[in-house]
């Protein structure tokens, strides 16, 4: 008998037909939108004309790259339902915050990108720092996405690595080149539904096989006790957070709430142009504010779609036949989703599931590429290379930047095949750059006295603080320099890598926050109140929502979202 742990999946003709149907539609959308893409605003901002439900779905979809899907399932297997903190204490509150409090400044300021907001609010150097680090980061993330896809397609389907990388690159290039951001957003909405419809039946069958939630709880109790934790460690999200040693994540509640919830999640959802760009494309201020809130509604149920499969996979692994092992003998949790597909769905739905996976890889790339071409064109080319050109000129530059972005991503993917560790190092460096960013925005938007020099030094010192903290600590059991401790002596050992990451973020944020305040107090304000109108809370009229039905009002939506999130937290306490 061929071992069940074999990773390869055999596709039938029907599976290829479904996959090809999807590709036809992806490209079709690009071609259909080509005519409507005439100005640079159309290309980079979708002409600010998209209804909120579409930008909302694109808002979550842009983030729902395959690393997210595969990584969340892997964490579900490794850490259980506690992974849902990434959603229920992390993403959702942050999305509510960005919609209610920050969107008025992003959308109202008419900034075309997040770095441009920084220029309007602070100064040129703060924008430059953010634009360059962001552009570099997007290229590498999109490259990692390609790399991961090539590897997966090779191990599952036996496809050639470079053929998958190049084919996906060409498809993404075509549809963005033709239809710009609108094309990316439309495809993200398509991908959203594909993921829901592709994974839902797999989860349903898997859960049935495990004996429903109660059956799953029983099986996972064994999983937990086998690994030396309390029975509920995999199925209760808060009860085991009282101390780091009581849960498989190795994180205690403070690190969780402050590190993941406050610094990392707010930092990502509130300042990352990749997602904010989707809201900026909305048709009105109200639609822009509703974008993250509408996104939050499906987002809070995503744990059932992406974390649950991992939990089922590890629970069903009881007889050691579900998950494959890595060369070093440890379980390959990243294989959770592919193995769920392999075990539970026949040809037909298998094609749909793989198409969903492929779609998430491609939209992960596309999200990065659309953010990249905008920042390159507006924040780098128009600002530093050739200002004051015609709109057609910038549209052409945007299209060229799209090609450049794809080529650089392919280069980054090639880089990853040669030096996998170097990619890890780069990811780490970007984490240092990103961790303090939310402090800069918080002060920028809510404290009018914050100055350009303050923001710039704050950002730099926050990044340095992150690096120093990482250099002086290490996670338990890890030896390599990439994991920390590279400054020689180790001052503190964290129970897990995740705990170390959360605390690195907390240190970076606090340093940036304090430095920005101190330096701002010591320097003169570089913007007049008039210049700050629409950029800072105290100097901006509250957005009025008169004449908008209650159910469409951001505040009402926010309350509903928070209430449901609270219920979910309590249900899985």
């Amino acid at each position: 008998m061929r071992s069940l742990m074999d990773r390869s999946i055999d596709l039938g003709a029907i599976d290829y037909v479904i996959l090809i149907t999807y590709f036809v539609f992806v490209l079709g959308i690009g071609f259909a939108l080509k005519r409507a893409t005439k100005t640079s605003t159309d290309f980079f901002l979708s002409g600010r004309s998209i209804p909120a439900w579409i930008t909302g779905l694109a808002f979550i979809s842009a983030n729902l790259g395959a690393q997210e899907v595969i990584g969340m399932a892997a964490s579900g297997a490794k850490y259980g339902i506690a992974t849902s903190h990434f959603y229920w204490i992390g993403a959702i509150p942050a999305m509510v915050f960005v919609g209610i409090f920050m969107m008025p400044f992003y959308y109202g300021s008419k900034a075309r990108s997040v770095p441009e907001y920084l220029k309007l609010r602070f100064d040129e150097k703060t924008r430059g720092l953010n634009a360059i680090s962001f552009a570099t980061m997007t290229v590498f993330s999109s490259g990692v996405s390609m790399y991961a896809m090539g590897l997966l397609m090779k191990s599952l389907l036996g496809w050639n690595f470079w053929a998958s990388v190049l084919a996906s690159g060409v498809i993404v290039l075509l549809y963005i080149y033709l239809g710009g951001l609108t094309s990316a957003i439309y495809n993200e909405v398509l991908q959203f539904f594909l993921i829901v419809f592709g994974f839902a039946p797999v989860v349903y069958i898997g859960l049935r096989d495990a004996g429903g939630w109660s059956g799953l709880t029983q099986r996972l109790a064994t999983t937990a006790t086998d690994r030396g934790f309390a029975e509920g460690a995999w199925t209760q999200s808060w009860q085991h957070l009282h101390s780091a040693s009581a849960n498989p994540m190795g994180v205690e509640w403070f690190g969780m709430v402050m590190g993941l919830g406050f610094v990392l999640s707010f930092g990502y959802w509130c300042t990352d142009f990749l997602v904010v760009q989707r809201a900026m494309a909305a048709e009105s201020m109200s639609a822009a504010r509703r974008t993250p809130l509408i996104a939050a509604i499906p987002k809070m149920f995503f744990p059932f779609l992406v974390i649950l499969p991992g939990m089922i996979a590890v629970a069903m692994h009881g007889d050691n036949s579900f998950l494959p092992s890595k060369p070093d003998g440890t379980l390959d949790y990243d294989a959770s989703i592919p193995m769920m597909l392999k075990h539970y769905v026949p040809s037909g739905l298998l094609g749909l599931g793989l198409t969903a996976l492929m779609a998430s890889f491609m939209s992960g790339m596309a999200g990065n590429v659309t953010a990249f071409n905008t920042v390159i064109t507006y924040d780098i080319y128009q600002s530093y290379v050739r200002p004051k050109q015609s709109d057609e000129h910038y549209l052409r530059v945007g299209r060229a930047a799209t090609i450049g972005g794809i080529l650089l991503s392919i280069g980054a993917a090639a880089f990853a095949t040669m030096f996998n560790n170097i990619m890890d190092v780069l990811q780490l460096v970007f984490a240092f750059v990103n961790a303090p960013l939310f402090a800069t925005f918080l002060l920028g938007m809510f404290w009018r006295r914050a100055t350009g020099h303050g923001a710039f030094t704050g950002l730099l010192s926050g990044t340095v603080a992150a690096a120093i903290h990482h250099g002086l600590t290490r996670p338990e059991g890890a030896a390599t320099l990439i994991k920390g401790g590279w400054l020689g002596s180790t001052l503190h050992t964290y129970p897990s890598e995740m705990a170390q990451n959360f605390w690195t973020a907390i240190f970076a944020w606090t340093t940036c926050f304090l430095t920005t305040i101190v330096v701002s107090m010591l320097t003169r304000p570089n913007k007049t109140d008039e210049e700050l109108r629409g950029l800072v809370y105290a100097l901006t009229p509250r957005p009025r929502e008169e004449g908008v039905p209650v159910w469409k009002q951001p505040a009402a939506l926010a309350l509903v979202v928070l209430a449901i999130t609270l219920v979910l937290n309590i249900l899985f306490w």
Partner: protein
Amino acid sequence: MRLDVRTPIGLMFAIIGVLLVVYGLVSDPEIYERSLGLNVNLWWGFVLVVFGSVMLALAWRSGRTKPPVVPAPAAPAELTQEGERLPPSEF
């Protein structure tokens, strides 16, 4: 007028749904052993056909009831909700 995103979504899911239904009817029942005996292709195909048709119907209805409008002007100048009361350009 720009493409209504519900059209391609509806069309694609309707087509995939029909493909799955047909495949569910003609495929060897043995392949459903792994899905616990459920003919998931048939059932899920139906769901996709219904979803696709609803999307198409919504797109078709909004295309008919709303006359084609000139795309709304770029963002409203001040922080009010004026954009809200204008008929959205394509829905």
